[in-house]
């Protein structure tokens, strides 16, 4: 059970990582739970803390914290978008 996580823009720079493969442990079954787990790494990862304005996507669609995670999913965290 593993997923691919991607980070973009300011968040990517802050974490010093564009993405990672991540093994899903039992009980870690939503985007919100994943976000909390990543935040617990501390240091730069606190950029993922709940109060921070971040957007999330699962399989390239915008998702909220309750979105379910499944094996092979592509999950992305990024700041509010500023295109156009």
């Amino acid at each position, binding site marked *: 059970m593993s997923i691919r996580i*991607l980070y*973009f823009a*300011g968040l990517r720079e802050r974490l010093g990582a564009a993405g990672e493969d991540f093994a899903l442990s039992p009980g870690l079954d939503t985007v919100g739970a994943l976000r909390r787990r990543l935040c617990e790494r501390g240091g730069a990862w606190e950029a993922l803390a709940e109060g921070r304005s971040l957007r999330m*996507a699962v399989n390239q669609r*915008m998702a909220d914290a309750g979105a379910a995670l499944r094996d092979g999913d592509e999950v992305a965290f990024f*700041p509010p*978008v*500023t*295109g*156009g």
Partner: protein
Amino acid sequence: MPVRVQREDFDVGAEIGALTRGATDVGAVASFVGLVRDTNDGSGVSEMTLEHYPGMTERALEEIVAQARGRWRVADLLVIHRYGRLLPGERIVLVVVTGAHRGEAFAACEFVMDYLKTRAPFWKKETTAAGSRWVEAREADDEAAARWDAQRPGG
């Protein structure tokens, strides 16, 4: 293809021409071009880099185009959005909507821009005299997008 995400510039006149050629039932073409400004939040901007999320970008734009089609009777829609390094004055985005009547073409064009601004995964980093910084999302853009949610389809 109604959606193109590309590094290269585009030709506004040629794109409008291609969309309307032979479409003699089209009476209205509303379009929008977004350009890099040389100032933002009071600072001079010397260049800008647009990052995006390949794959999701196209998907998000196609979803927005489909929503516009569901709301208004339009003949054709085109969205081109660039990424990479851009200088002030350069084109960033083009939205073209064709239809029989102008009211629906205008509404659909503005809707696509408002949704794109808040839902398509692009991020701007601009270079000023003080260094480079990520552009902050604007509350005004959230409000512009929220307007459409308050309106009934066709409104």
